[in-house]
């Protein structure tokens, strides 16, 4: 069902736009048949955008599922360990220094890694891994990053500030195949590791002591999972900016669909996250066409009602 949802949303993502195509045009063009203009539009404009959106959604869904499970916290999300704050600081600094647009993603990625490193360093004060300390460290790093962003943005011209804000709100509008290839490779490695470690997440979800009693070196496995999930999230931020709520909501959707073991939760979250982001991107570029809405705002607007329904069920 999730595969069908992804195929449907991807078809829609490729079909919709200033040069509308039918579903059969889309599938024909994918395999190189039909009108050459359609083929060109699909291959150089629509397809990279849809694939990048799908990769970002899949990565955020998997990373969110892994962090929620390993931290035993249904409110955990992929940006938790300072990824969003760090990436925003990196990107704002790059904007402030007048860096060319191509340097924004690496700056954001570097900022995200630095923030995650800092959060882990702070939480290392104790000898045993305690998820609560790590959560607090993430909050502290995030707060520090917010302050840093305000300091950086305070002195900039309105145009630069606007660019920085737009970047932070997330977009896959500038997708190209080089970006897609980079994120696909990166996400395959880190996402693959998380899927391989899925049973460790099952155990960590019971608590560190219970996991240790079932043969897991929890003090090593848990930080490893936090780091890899955060690295995965950091890569999405470098590719598409901040796409909020996907990583928080999608794992809940996967669990609500009846997936219990984390390997299944990760795969289902990847599929659902991919569909959600592709769909949100369709809305982002059609609702006020030819202007675009920020992708991160659209995912949040879709995600909030779903999350509210979930809270009502739990309460």
């Amino acid at each position: 069902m999730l595969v069908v949802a992804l195929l449907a949303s991807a078809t829609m993502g490729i079909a919709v736009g200033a040069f509308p195509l039918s579903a059969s045009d889309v599938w024909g063009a994918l395999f190189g048949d039909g009108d050459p203009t359609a083929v060109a539009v699909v291959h150089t404009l629509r397809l990279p955008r849809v694939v990048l959106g799908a990769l970002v959604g899949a990565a955020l869904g998997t990373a969110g599922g892994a962090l929620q499970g390993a931290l035993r916290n249904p409110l955990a999300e992929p940006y938790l360990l300072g990824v969003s704050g760090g990436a925003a600081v990196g990107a704002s600094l790059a904007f402030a220094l007048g860096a060319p647009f191509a340097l924004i993603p690496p700056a954001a990625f570097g900022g995200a890694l630095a923030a995650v490193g800092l959060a882990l360093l702070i939480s290392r004060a104790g000898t045993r891994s305690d998820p609560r300390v790590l959560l607090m460290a993430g909050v502290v790093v995030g707060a520090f990053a917010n302050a840093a962003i305000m300091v950086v943005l305070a002195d900039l011209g309105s145009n630069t500030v606007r660019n920085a804000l737009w970047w932070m709100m997330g977009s896959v509008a500038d997708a190209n195949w080089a970006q897609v290839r980079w994120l696909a490779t990166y996400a395959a490695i880190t996402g693959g590791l998380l899927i391989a470690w899925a049973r460790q997440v099952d155990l960590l979800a019971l608590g560190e002591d219970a996991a240790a009693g079932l043969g897991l070196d929890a003090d090593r496995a848990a930080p490893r999972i936090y780091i890899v999930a955060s690295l995965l999230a950091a890569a999405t931020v470098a590719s598409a900016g901040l796409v909020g709520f996907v990583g928080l909501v999608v794992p809940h959707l996967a669990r609500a669909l009846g997936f219990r073991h984390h390997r299944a939760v990760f795969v289902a979250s990847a599929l659902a996250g991919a569909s959600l982001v592709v769909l949100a991107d369709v809305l982002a570029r059609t609702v006020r066409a030819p202007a675009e809405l920020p992708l991160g705002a659209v995912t949040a607007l879709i995600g909030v009602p779903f999350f509210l329904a979930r809270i009502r069920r739990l309460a």
Partner: protein
Amino acid sequence: MIEFREVTVRYAGALRPALQSVSIAAPRGSLTAVVGPNGSGKSTLVRALIGRQPLAGGDVRVDGVPVAQMDRVAIARRIAIVTQREDAVFSLPVRDYVAMGRYPHIGGWRGLGAADHVAIDRAASLTDLHVFMDRRLDTLSGGEWQRVRLARAIAQGGDAIVLDEPTTFLDIAHEMQVFELLSRLAHVERLAVLLVSHQLNLVARFADHIVLLHEGTVAAAGTAHEVMRGEVLERVYQWPLVVSRDPAVGAPALVPLRRR
């Protein structure tokens, strides 16, 4: 057999060691209980056993082999732990939860095999859980949840079970059920059962060997009659009390007094 040999544990910044040269043996076929006031070091023993607490001295051994030299999965195949508290943040069907006891046997990728299903079914019958297997964890009462946790430990299929306060929050009937089951696991199934408990009177009736901890040291060890002595318990618990006889079975029974 689980053995703690002269185990010493120090927490950073603490005035005295959490455990000071503590030796305890829990042989197969026997129910061994560790009792003592809050902060006497009981839970630290369990953490030392699962390798989450570095030792400052001594060692913990399983059938003569120090656990420090054993692979964690190998330990988990031999010893099951029921920790003091555990709440399932993400609810599962009971069957899936009990099946997690087989994780040390199936590794990261393999599915459950015939032997695993046998172990799970056996655990379900010993704990009388068959009718619960399709329920979800978040629908269980406190007593049912405790039985499900015991079932997971039994499904683990080792020759030892260690339990940290398994009857906290349970009413009399559920408490008795747990102790009856532990007695059966020790005396009929011939497991080594090591129990950390505050329930002195129940421990006195069920345990073969009792170790009383006080401020990280062994204050007394032996049978119920040897350990449950008024002057010893009064000193350790810092509360006036008398030890009388359980009228039904003659085991020592502790009655705390009102302070004047």
